[in-house]
């Protein structure tokens, strides 16, 4: 298969897919190495970008899919008459962030961090399809462990969990730590 044929094949298959198509699956379809498929897909994506197309080829949740270009949001939203996605509460977002960075993680572990009962929030996130049980903890009780789903990646436009922003960047600076320490002092009476 020439490079050109491969690109055409990718364009055709991704065009008819309703979920992101993995390089692995395309490798099977085209009987070509996955690395070759991957690099052809990347080249295609770049060429669309260069040619300023109204669509993009993005890697989401491990696979490729066509999407409208973000700067066409005005027309696309007008067209699709999309309702704004239901917003999650602060509590739900923080819990989701904990699951994303700490996965696999149990309800009890999340509760311990947030200092509140999180059963309701975890259930909500599970029902929305953002998190799912991914296993069970060892030891007594065998608590259910949660992780994020492909839908979570999709909604955030991420190719994989590795693309999450590094949590270190969000740790409070030294000033905030000193301030927190100060605030804890009267609480503990020392």
């Amino acid at each position, binding site marked *: 298969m020439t490079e050109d044929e491969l690109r055409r094949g990718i364009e055709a298959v991704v065009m*008819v897919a309703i979920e992101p198509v993995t390089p692995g699956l395309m490798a099977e379809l085209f009987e070509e190495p996955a690395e070759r498929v991957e690099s052809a897909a990347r080249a295609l994506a770049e060429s669309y970008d260069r040619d300023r197309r109204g669509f993009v080829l993005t890697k989401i949740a491990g696979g490729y899919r066509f999407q409208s270009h973000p700067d066409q949001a005005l027309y696309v939203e007008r067209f699709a008459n999309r309702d704004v996605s239901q917003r999650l509460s*602060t509590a739900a977002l*923080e819990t989701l962030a904990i699951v994303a960075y700490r996965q696999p993680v149990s309800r009890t572990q999340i509760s311990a961090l947030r200092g509140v009962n999180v059963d309701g929030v975890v259930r909500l996130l599970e029902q929305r399809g953002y998190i799912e049980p991914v296993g069970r903890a060892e030891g007594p009780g065998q608590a259910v462990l949660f992780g994020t789903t492909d839908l979570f990646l999709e909604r955030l436009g991420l190719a994989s969990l590795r693309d999450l922003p590094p949590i270190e960047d*969000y740790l409070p600076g030294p000033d905030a730590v000193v301030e927190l*320490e100060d605030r804890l002092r009267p609480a503990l009476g020392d």
Partner: protein
Amino acid sequence: MRAPVRYGPSVGVDVSTPVFEGPIDLLLHLVTSHELDILEVPLAPVVDAFVATMQATKDRYGLEVLSEFLLVAAILLELKSQRLLPGPDEVDPEDELLGWEERDLLLSRLLECRAYAGVADRLVQMAEDAARSLPRLTGVDEGFVVHAPDLLEGVTPDRLARAFLRATAERPVQRVDLSHVTVDTLTVAEAVDELVVELPRMRSTTFAELTGHLAARIEVIVRFLAILELCKLGRVQLGQGQTFGELSIEWIEGAELVGVGVGAIVLDEYNG
């Protein structure tokens, strides 16, 4: 205590106190950013607002909003109770060490929570960016022969009925439970149970006296919430001479005639 709520829609429930009027999450923000001294904010109106909101507008706000309100209110109470608790004059060196250990643990938990709260903002931003681009969902054109494997294999009418129930189930409601604020210790309800036995015997006491024997901070906070519950129920009268003063607790005579245990009290009180 926990990182201040710094984003997301306002909780939407207003409270009114002599020094502050407005959304409760703003109140928390002001307190945690030291723009308002928690000791100057009487919290009884906050509790009243919560109860009133519960009764009047359950349908309008939905439980998620209300539980968020409760969480914020609980944090305020926790902050205030921390400030109210008198520090011990003499500290056993061993106790002090334990205190430092506890503080370090709390501090690291707080820092981590802050990081997650901060990154949650970023996640929202990412989701909003991603939502600007819609995926193609058209699928394969009609012309193609799809040798459809039987996707319904293994699907029984029974599974279908259950799927329908799942699909049409109400969105889950968060359980609003006062025990939210206690991690795994005594619940507020249990503390109320305990106090309705203890307080009539003591008639009049102070908060410090009542909680002097308690080691864990969380236990003290639970008692504080329980006292507020009882105050709300008209079982006790609270008084505080001055801002840093003792919190006095007075059992209201005759109150013990009603019901035994918190379940009975709550039901008797509110069902009417």
